[in-house]
């Protein structure tokens, strides 16, 4: 690891009107595209493979390898779909990127589509973030006007259409096959696999689906080379990435650093937890990743490091909670989210989240009964790994890890309301004075 922070994607976020095409070009924008168009598509795929870039959407699947799964002999067109449906609690990296420098993504889309020989690319943006949708649409329009998109891109003979598609408000549409259904105009529910999207995805044609950050990383790899990218990060988790710091920290925000940095380093760089408070628990990658405690603060934030700790790197959304926070309460809020966002297709997710919420509400109110914790754990065992897609796995990950690390707080839920045990107003930043117990929920 050379530098602590390595701003690449976020390098120009602070510039004046960084989202305009002219400003992006002035900082070297779209030169990577010109280089890529000089290469054969297969060479671009090889370059990305060599870089070791892994999917930044959470699962960490090698991007170049994903691209090479597209069958060569399929008569149907190949599509590129960018998953910009960022909506997990705590995750906030793609939205700022698309707000600040949408052209990084657009350029990445063009290069990636060229690499997989797609003539159509779709960017599926979460529907609630209208400002982001508009900014992205504006960027795509600018790219069309400049000849970066459309027929005969930069005189190369390559044709590409890029469509920005707004979702309709469903977390499940971040699941790639549900996203495809939604993009096709159906209800967003995950599809049966196989066939996998690489073989039969959008409109039953070969489709590559990548996260915004993955695609946005591609221009820098083309511009600086695979070795440059691989020089950052750790043995198997290469490159720089965006970490999102949120919660009870002194200075929340996005930090771009090589994979493998630790939470302690990031906190040290940003001023630590809010004054007078200590870290109690944190998520490495959003609410779907099992929570960790201060004892994990020196673990490398890469795919392997988090897996070794029994968690996942996920979207690198580092939500930090201090000692004022009720684990029971935060767990309940997360599970309520999953209950609301469960698409309803499969039984364990749909029904299990319905039940979990009710038990957790009881525990939060101090009305839990003996056996509730065992029941929750058994229920989680019957949900996790039994559902149709990974949404339910995420829903139970926060529960089981919370009980694992903070069982005594759940036990307290059998006699003491969480708001009495850890008065909620203390964990807020906006209420300074003490409130009567139960005043804020």
């Amino acid at each position, binding site marked *: 690891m050379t530098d602590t922070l390595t701003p690449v994607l976020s390098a120009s976020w602070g510039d004046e009107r960084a989202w305009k095409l002219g400003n992006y070009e002035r900082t070297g924008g779209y030169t990577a595209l010109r280089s890529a168009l000089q290469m054969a598509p297969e060479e671009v795929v090889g370059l990305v493979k060599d870089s070791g870039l892994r999917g930044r959407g959470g699962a960490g699947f090698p991007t170049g390898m994903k691209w090479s799964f597209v069958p060569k002999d399929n008569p149907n067109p190949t599509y590129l779909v960018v998953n910009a449906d960022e909506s997990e609690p705590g995750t906030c990296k793609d939205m700022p990127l698309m707000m600040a420098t949408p052209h990084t993504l657009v350029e990445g889309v063009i290069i990636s589509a060229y690499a997989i020989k797609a003539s159509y690319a779709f960017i599926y943006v979460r529907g609630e973030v209208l400002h982001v949708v508009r900014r992205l649409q504006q960027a795509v329009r600018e790219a069309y006007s400049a000849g970066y998109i459309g027929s005969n891109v930069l005189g190369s003979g390559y044709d590409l259409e890029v469509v920005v598609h707004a979702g309709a408000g*469903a977390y*499940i549409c971040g699941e790639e096959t549900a996203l495809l259904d939604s993009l096709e105009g159906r*209800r967003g529910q995950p599809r*049966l696999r196989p066939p996998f999207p690489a073989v039969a995805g959008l409109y039953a044609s070969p489709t590559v689906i990548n996260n915004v950050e993955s695609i946005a990383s591609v221009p820098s790899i083309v511009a600086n080379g695979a070795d440059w990218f691989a020089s950052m990060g750790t043995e198997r988790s290469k490159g720089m990435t965006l970490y999102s710091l949120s919660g009870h920290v002194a200075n929340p925000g996005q930090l771009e650093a090589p994979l493998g940095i630790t939470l302690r380093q990031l906190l040290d760089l940003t001023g630590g937890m809010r004054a007078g408070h200590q870290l109690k628990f944190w998520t490495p990658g959003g609410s779907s990743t099992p929570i960790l405690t201060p004892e994990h603060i020196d673990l490398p934030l890469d795919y392997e490091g988090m897996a070794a700790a029994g968690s996942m790197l996920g979207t690198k959304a580092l939500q930090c909670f201090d000692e004022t926070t009720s684990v029971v309460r935060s767990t309940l809020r997360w599970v309520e989210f999953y*209950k*609301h*966002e*469960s*698409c*309803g*297709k*499969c*039984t*364990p997710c*749909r*029904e*299990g*989240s*319905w*039940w979990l919420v*009710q*038990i957790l509400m009881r525990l939060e109110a101090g009305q839990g009964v003996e056996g509730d914790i065992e*029941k929750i754990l*058994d*229920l989680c*065992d*019957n*949900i996790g*790994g*039994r*559902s*149709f897609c990974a949404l339910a796995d995420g829903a139970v990950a926060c529960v089981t890890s919370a009980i694992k690390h903070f069982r005594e707080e759940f036990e307290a839920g059998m006699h003491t309301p969480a708001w009495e045990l850890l008065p909620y107003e203390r964990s807020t930043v906006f209420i300074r004075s003490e409130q009567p117990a139960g005043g804020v929920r």
Partner: protein
Amino acid sequence: MTVTDRKDGADVEVAEQLVTVTIDDTQVQVPKGTLAIRAAELIGVAIPRFCDHPLLDPVGACRQCLVEVPDMGNGRGMPKPQASCTLEVADGMQIRTQLTSPVADKAQHGMIEMLLLNHPLDCPVCDKGGECPLQNQAMSNGRGESRFEAVKRTYPKPVSISAQVLLDRERCVLCARCTRFSEQIAGDPFIALVERGALQQVGIYEREPFESYFSGNTIQICPVGALTSAAYRFRARPFDLTSTPSVGEHDACGAAIRVDHRRGEVMRRLAGDDPEVNEEWITDKDRFAFRYGRGEDRLRTPLVREDGVLRPASWPEAIDVAVAGLRRAGRDVGVLTGGRLTLEDAYGYSRFARTVLGTDDIDFRARPLSQEEADFLSRHVAGRADVVYADVEKASGVLMVAFEPEEEAGTLFLRLRKASRRSGVPSWTVAPYLSNGARKAGAVLVPAAPGAEPQVLAGLEEHIPLDAGSIIFVGERAAVLPGTLTAVAELAERTGARLAWVPRRAGDRGALEAGCLPGLLPGGRPLADPRARVDCLSVWELGRELQATPGRDAEQMLAAAATGELRALVVSGVDPGDFADPAAVLRGLEEVGFLVSVENRLSEVTARADVVLPVSLVEERPGTFVTWEGRRREFGVVIRHANPMTDLRVLAALADALGHDLGIRTVADARREIAQFDPWTRDRALPGGSGPSPAPATPVAPAAAPDGGRADGGRADGGHQLLLATWRMMLDPSRALDNEPHLLATARRPVARVSQATARRAGLVEGEGVRLVGPRGEAVLPVHVTAGMVDDVIWVPTLAAGISVPALGLGAGRPVTVHPAALPATPHPGAAVPVGEGALPGAGVDVQHEEQGGVA
């Protein structure tokens, strides 16, 4: 030796590649691509399931069928339990079900528990209670007591998603069987899952109810009591019902059904499981239309006419009166049989006419008919069985002529759709427009104005690929389109394609086989052939010669009855309204010297009869229907009475009293005797019918219209002359739907269809009315402009609320004058049954009230 023993591979043709998989330590070989849940069934392991259905595409939604896979066949295990309903087995795969895997067992227990979370425990009042997969599997694979102590999701209940189908959303386990059936099997995706999470539910479009002729199947495949029928809801408990396998009597498809009765009354009918015929699906008509015999019009005693009025009589008296009348008529008696009759009954009439009455005046065609048709049936249909259901899926192509499978043969429609969807079998339909049913069956339109079919069929093989692997389906309607049946036969001859004639009624094909056609003896034997007559004489042990001259067809008989040439008629199962000219039929029935009606309900015929002899309903007697394929579908008694009267017994009694021995008295007798006829392999032509019918007529073109017509079709009186296209719909106000208002309410709304250009020329406007003027009356229907329709043609349903084409004096291929008109204020009566109204999620419907209204 198994089929995989390939040491002598040259001799053993291995149709499918087999893979070896180990389930619960038992090895089994199954075709590649088999789902684990099916493979487990083969070794007798039943994995619990809800969403899985072997005839629907897998979905993997309920997660009930989880199994453990310690080895995928490559030495590596699956980290998570897998849904066996979506898991294709691989060679060397190891699978552990709930029997040998604690993980799978626990997962399944957990799934049942979760399915029951939001399921009301109203089993004691639920229609499904006692035959419920959820109930059963909760017992076999669930935990004894629920740990759920929280609040269940509740909804107002029920919601009607059509006039016939009601939805209890609380009970729904969201397995998507109903929605997948509707989309995949029926092609009517009018129901879909809406909302999300635990609030996900089956929903309909606001203004488009669940309009499907096959909707009842969703009730049957619902693994819980979420879908119920308006007709059966709260009527009976499954464990109080007695089930009897039977055969659908509403079309010529021979669908296997299961009839459930209690205390002498049929409570409901379900689809039987017959992979050769209807798989596991039946039409709503076969499912719901079984109360037609329960009205006030049911005949229970014989009636004789005295002083112009029918009065009840004893059987001996009625037989005596009938025999006296028939004696007076001598040999001048005609026999008209209809579509209600079983093969055995039809055979009885055929034999009764020939051996007792000594006449060949017998015809089963109680509908528009032609001599060309009689010749076609004799040559190409009777005694043959060239096409069966399964052939459709293997065909190189399917051509339909004068045939709308969804309306006229629902089971065949489903098979055609399956062939198109699963096997990509191409199909074409010769019709004036591409109906929704034909579209769902995957057909491409070969446009033809009614009457223009012969010209279209001549040389059709140059435009569409037809070969020996093709099948041509021709509907019974082709009888009134001159030259069409001949052209169809010639096309089949030229291309080698196989031919299948599809009648609408259950009894028609059997009647044809039994010889209920002038000039045709049982088994497709032409009366004119002396060897055919000898065959009959030997089976019938008749001492005298059969009359060798062919008799009159139904229309000729009725005409002869009107003039007094025929002095008596024996009529069974005939509705005059079905004929091309109902008025002529009624005239014949009124004028004939003596009329014997054998019937189970009062009718237009019994109203004019001198003697009425009551017979049993189909559920009260055994019999056989012959499908369009020629397949015999025997069925037994559902409701057992001490002394059920069949047409056959009536005929035997009449014969006895006339001093003859009919030779057969029971269904078993008839079956035995029918079996004595060897297959007829000689010439099949009817005498005189030396091939194509007279005058393969030029269709009546609008321009050639008489009385004041102009070349553009406009008329001096402001009307416009068009050609009429028409066919019967599956659900229409026919007597088969009597006492079944919920079903009738799902009938299609009647419309008159014209092309855009025709509408413009004739001044017709979409959604407004058109008045059709026929020789004997007129009717007004809403106009529906239909894309791709042949110009100068107007299509209307043959029978619907507000219109009866025969009653107007009209028919297919005939000119009709149309005028723009205002629509009558009243909606069509089908829509007046208001169960479907307010059928939106959240809007509970007071079904009890409707039910009382419906059954009274």
